[in-house]
Every structure is written in structure tokens, then in C-alpha cells.
């Protein structure tokens, strides 16, 4: 294949050649036909929206690439499920009259997922201080008391949390611009 972006015709060929295989691979990993079918579609959709930087030399390279993308999607799916369950648990403890609209819930879920991803990259106490300050809008003194550390320490945690998230965001922006990396 020529060494430039994957063309729609090539995506057609990739789909015909590898969709069944990818579906089976995902099913083995997820143990659920619906999820496997959904993710297999998502992988190809992503290939259309964010084309790979160049064509694939052969079928095994194409499969390695598809597997890398699919694997990342599986991990995201489990992460999202966990977040969704936590949110449902929270909702279940509140009177139904307070339940936000479906649109609002979608926004909240997305925010929970993003915040969860950021916090996972941080040390426990740093993540906890950041969450209490930002999500619960608590004061630094209150947080210091709850964590059993000084206010100075809370301030240090916050600067550390923010810096790491900024760097993550900067890398993300760079990665988005680079489109997808090559398969390993």
C-alpha cells in the first residue's frame, strides 16, 4: 500500500478482511457479544475519523494496529462502566425528585470520567485534596484538617495536582495533533 493516509477504499478492504477477526478477538476479551460488536464498530469508526498516519504494509501489521486501538477501547469501556456504576449508586441514595435530566446526567458522567482519569495519575493524598477543593469547593483549611496535614501542605498538593494535569493535557493535545501513533 502507498505510504500515505489510509483511503476510504482501503478502509473498506480493511473492514472486509479484519472485522470478523476483530469482533472475535474483542468477544474473547469482553465476554459479551454486544460490547464486542459495538467496540469493533468503534475501532473502524475511529480509523475513518482519525486516519492512521500511513497505510499498512501487510495484514499482520494492520491487525497489530487494530488490536492496539481495540485494547485501549476495552480499558476505557471498563473504566466508564465503573464510573457509571458509582454514579448510579450515588443517584440511588437520593430522592428521585432530585434526579437530573438525561442530558444533564450525560454531562455529569463525562465529567466524572475525565476527572477520574486525571485523579488516577496522581498520588492518593494529592488526588484527594484536589477532588475536595475542586468538586466539593471546600476551603484549604478544611481539607487540611480532613487529611491531617498543614494548610501549606495542601497548597503544595494542589500545585502538584494542577501541574501534573496540565502536563497530561499538553501531552494529550500534542497526541491529538499527531493523530494516532504507530502500532507497537
Amino acid at each position, binding site marked *: 500500500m502507498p*505510504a500515505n493516509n489510509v483511503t476510504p477504499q482501503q478502509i473498506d478492504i480493511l473492514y472486509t478482511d479484519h472485522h470478523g477477526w476483530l469482533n472475535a478477538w474483542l468477544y474473547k476479551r469482553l465476554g459479551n457479544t454486544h460490547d464486542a460488536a459495538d467496540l469493533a464498530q468503534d475501532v473502524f469508526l475511529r480509523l475513518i475519523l482519525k486516519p492512521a498516519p500511513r497505510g499498512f504494509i501487510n495484514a499482520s501489521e494492520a491487525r497489530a494496529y487494530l488490536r492496539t486501538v481495540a485494547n485501549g477501547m476495552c480499558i476505557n469501556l471498563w473504566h466508564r462502566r465503573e464510573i457509571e456504576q458509582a454514579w448510579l449508586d450515588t443517584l440511588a441514595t437520593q430522592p428521585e425528585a432530585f434526579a437530573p435530566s438525561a442530558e444533564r446526567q450525560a454531562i455529569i458522567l463525562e*465529567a466524572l470520567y475525565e*476527572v*477520574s482519569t486525571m*485523579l488516577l495519575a496522581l498520588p492518593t493524598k494529592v488526588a484527594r485534596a484536589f477532588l475536595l477543593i475542586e468538586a466539593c*469547593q471546600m476551603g*484549604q483549611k478544611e481539607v487540611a484538617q480532613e487529611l491531617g496535614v498543614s494548610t501549606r501542605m495542601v497548597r503544595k498538593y494542589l500545585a502538584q495536582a*494542577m*501541574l501534573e*494535569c496540565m502536563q497530561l493535557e499538553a501531552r494529550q493535545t500534542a497526541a491529538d495533533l499527531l493523530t494516532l501513533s504507530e502500532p507497537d
Partner: protein
Amino acid sequence: MSNGPASSSIANQSEPPHRVMEQAAEWYAVLSSEDATKQEYADWRAWLESDPTHRKAWGYVESISHRFEPLQTTTAPRQTAEGLWQANTRLIQRRRVLASIAILVGTGLVGWGTWRHTPLPLLARAWQADYDTATGETRELTLSDGSRIWLNTATALSQTYDTHKRHLNLLKGEIFISTAADPSRPFTVDTPQGRLKALGTRFTVRLDGEQTLLAVYEGAVQTRTRLGKISTLEAGQQVRFSSEAVNTVEAAQATREAWTRGVLVAQDITLREVVAELRRYRHGHLGLAPEVANLRVFGNFPLTNIDKTLEMLADTLPVRIHRLLPWWVSIEPQKD
């Protein structure tokens, strides 16, 4: 060779230097204090306006803070935050479990076959279980509140009890529950397809592929599918539901709960259904010839001794048990 237009635009993109990112993060920590002074605000403004890279770095601070906004506006932000915190704790634990499984696989302590054929989430779930049973094993538990639970074959269950709630998570298999009354603490069971809330009762929950089967024998149970569809099931009813849809309600088979006593009660069900049930209690292949699959079966069969059950079936039906290998058994029509 793969230098497309995208990578050249990266080169033109000037990210603020690390030192500036650090300054922005420090300003954020100073200004988020309830004690931030007017002077500090003025100093921050001067810093912000002194260089375009400062503005850019501050843009990151704003976009990150912005992500928390939807959480601040929930009914109970603290509760939302704690839910998120617990989810993250579980995610971290799971990563550790998966890392340790990877080590076991690497050292050959877990058979490669088992590992390869078990979907990853199931494996991870089974490792989270507080209680489990092996294939062919059943188990009876009394929980701290006096509720009694029977675990059927190949079942995994985890439990969260605290002062506000009694909660079980059925990870695989089947359980029969007889709840103890406690009006101050609701009793809930989660399955991958949804949540069940017991309203003082005896019921069975079983995971069947991508569906949950719920049968209620006493009281009532409220179900809520993952997609939020709510319905209530009364005593004597059973229903299957997936994450999306709830099937029609049927009459509960009272005989289904007999497994808690180690017995399979067959009252005019097909041999196919009996075999499907027996397969859950037994490792290895249990085949069934299509010619005999629709024979009707009556009787009580021991689930604790499947070989005995097979003999009993051969005694009462026109079938024979063909044992090719100890773990390869098939039920075939009797030879004339």
C-alpha cells in the same frame, strides 16, 4: 518517512516552557485559598499579562478547573465526589489484581488455557469476590444481619454492608436469598444488567449469559436495569432482563429453588432443559442427542451427584449414557 503535515504543525506549536507551567500551577494553589489577598490577585494579573506563554499556561489551569464544574452542581457534590473516589479505588485495585495475574501467568502458576479462555472482566470479577463456589459446589451463608444466602454452582458474590445499606454484587452464577427484615437498611443486589431492591422477601437471582433471571417466591423485588427501566416483581413471578430490555413476566417455577437443598425438581420439563441445568454442575462435555432432547422429564434428581442423576435418567427414559472418556459423556437414544 511518516512526516505528515500533522507532525510539522506540532513543531510550530509552542507549548509554554515547564517553568511557566509550574508558575501557573503555583498561582492556582495560591488563588484557590480562602485567604488569598488583593495583593496576590494583583501580582497574578501582572504575571498573566507579562508574557503570552503565561496566558497559554493559565488557559490549561482554567480548562482543568472547568472539568469539575458539572460535579459541583450535582444535588450532593460531596456524595458524588465520594462515589467517584470509591470507583477510582476499585480501578486501582483491579489494576493491581491484573498485574498480579499477569505475574502468575508469567510464572506458569495459572494454566495458560484457563487464562486464555476466561474473559478478562470475568476473571477480574471473580478475584474481587468475597464468596464463591466451584463448579458442582453449593454453599449456604448467613450474613451479619441474619439474611441467608445460598450460592449455587460456579458462583461469585461480593458483599458491602454498612450502617446505611446491605448490598450484594452477583459476579457470576446464581444465588437464592432470604432477607432478614431491617427497615433502616435497604437490601440491594447488583448484576451486570441492573439493580434489584428487595422489599422483604425470598428470591433467586441468576446470571444467564447477557441476561439476569429473577424469580420471586415471597414479598416483592424492584428491578432497575442499567438503562434505568424500573419495574416491580411480585411473589410467584419471574422475569429475565438485559441492560436494555425487560422480558415479559412469567409464573415463577417454585421447583427452581430446590437446588438450595441439592435437588433438581423436574416437573414436565424437556430433557434439553435438564441437561442445560446439569452442565452447570459438572466440568467436561455433556452431550445430548437431538432425537431425545424433547423427551419430557419428571422426578427429583440429586445435584450433588451428577453421575447418579445420569443413571436415574437412563432408568426412567429411553436413553443410554455413553461414556467415551471420564469427562466426555453423551446422552443418546437407547439402542433397540
